[in-house]
């Protein structure tokens, strides 16, 4: 649940591509009811962006905030389900670009939307064991939604990353982290397929809700905390509805969810989703605030984290662009351009 040596977040970085497609535009193309769309708009990566380029920007922002020499990183781990190469690590390119090579552990992690939070939990253990001074974990995706599929409305691009280090250097101390995993086939993509398949309504109750609730309850029980003890809460956000519903069941009021709820504006950034919400909360939080965060990845499982903000956050958060900066930097595109950027037109 927590390492013997106390650790925390010493730097964080976020990134969201500039392009947006409105949900009503997707509904227009496929003849769906524009009043029944799940979110307002989603982010779309530019033609020259992929999980590598997004992860590099996230890593640079995280290093800026951490104020460390990248050579002191002992791990650069990237969690994603949209690797540009099926075989060849994303993380080596990121580590090379930020000058963390060559004495660093680099690997790509995969667990649908939970891959990013897994890297952060592993960084906690890596630093907490004394094996690493600093470690960087990133969650990023350029999520694939099949044309006309329900997921096309939300499958978006972006992510966030965290440099983990000793608690005394931290802008937020990790109070504990716990995982809850079962074999639940709610969403998958087979080898060589371009788009994932999913179990429609099966993705809700036995999947998202069961794992997010079980993981969150278990960590709070272990720590002896309750929703009232936290100032902010972040859940994996495949849409707007699910995280608000899960918060209500657990007893977190809407006001504690809203600052970390970015999916209505940029969509579901999959492995980046909960981590991006956490970055948005850190952009706003102040010393003494307690934050609870639970990711969710199909297949299925959740990682929960409990954090407490220190006096170091205020000075560090202004050293890189906030999540808000990236959300407000937007250019709307139509479905045709979106189809081109996402390589939905095969020639």
């Amino acid at each position, binding site marked *: 649940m927590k390492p013997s040596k106390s650790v925390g977040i010493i730097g964080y970085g976020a990134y969201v591509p500039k392009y947006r497609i409105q949900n009503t535009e997707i509904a227009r193309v496929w003849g769906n009811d524009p009043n029944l769309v799940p979110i307002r708009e989603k982010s779309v990566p530019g033609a*020259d962006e992929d999980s*590598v380029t997004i992860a590099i920007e996230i890593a640079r922002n995280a290093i800026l905030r951490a104020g460390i020499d990248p050579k002191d990183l002992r791990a650069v781990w990237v969690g994603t389900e949209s690797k*540009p190469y099926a075989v060849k690590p994303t993380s080596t390119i990121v580590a*090379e*670009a930020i000058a963390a090579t060559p004495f660093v552990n680099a690997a790509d992690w995969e667990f649908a939307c939970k891959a990013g939070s897994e890297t952060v939990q592993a960084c906690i253990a890596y630093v907490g064991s004394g094996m690493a001074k600093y470690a960087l974990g990133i969650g990023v995706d350029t999520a694939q939604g099949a044309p006309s599929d329900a997921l096309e409305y939300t499958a978006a691009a972006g992510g966030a990353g965290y440099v983990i280090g000793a608690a005394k250097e931290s802008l937020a101390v990790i109070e504990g982290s716990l995982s809850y995993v079962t074999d639940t086939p709610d969403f998958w993509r087979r080898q060589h397929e371009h788009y994932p398949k999913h179990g429609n309504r099966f993705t809700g109750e036995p999947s998202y809700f069961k794992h997010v609730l079980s993981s969150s309850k278990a960590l709070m029980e272990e720590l002896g905390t309750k929703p009232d003890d936290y100032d902010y809460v972040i859940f994996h956000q495949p849409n707007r509805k699910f995280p608000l519903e899960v918060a209500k069941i657990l007893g977190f009021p809407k006001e504690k969810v809203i600052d970390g709820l970015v999916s209505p504006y940029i969509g579901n950034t999959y492995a980046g989703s909960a981590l991006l919400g956490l970055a948005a909360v850190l952009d706003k939080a102040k010393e003494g605030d307690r934050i609870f965060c639970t990711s969710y990845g199909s297949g299925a499982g959740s990682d929960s984290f409990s954090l407490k903000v220190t006096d170091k956050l205020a000075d560090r958060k202004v050293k890189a*662009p*906030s999540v*808000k*900066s*990236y959300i407000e930097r937007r250019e709307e595109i139509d479905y045709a351009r979106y189809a081109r950027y996402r390589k939905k037109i095969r020639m």
Partner: protein
Amino acid sequence: MDVPRHWREQVRRYRLVGSKCNDCEKLSFPYRKVCPKCKSRNNENYQFIGRGKIISFTNINSPPKEHKYNLPFAVALIELMEGPIITAQITDARAEELEIGMEVEMVTRKIMEYNDEGIICYGYKFRPIVEYAHP
């Protein structure tokens, strides 16, 4: 596909690393084995901050086929903060959004890819600076 050629240059292209002459302190990009000012061979890697301003730019309509995926895009002459002038692609902004004197920042983006089977080449591009809005 020329993998070794890309690999030899990739680190400097990912990070915008040029050279500094240890004799006359002249900064260059790309890396120069021989200093263009004093002809010294005593040069070392130099990491540029990655900020500069546009001196001139043009819109590209007929690029080599590897770059067509990214049309339309602008190419600019950029004066780096440290002095050297480099040529780079502009991303996240079309030519009509650019101005001479505009401040830009370096990002690492996909430059080109060799079909679906080959390697992906990443490198520096520049974009208008992202403002640090804070909540």
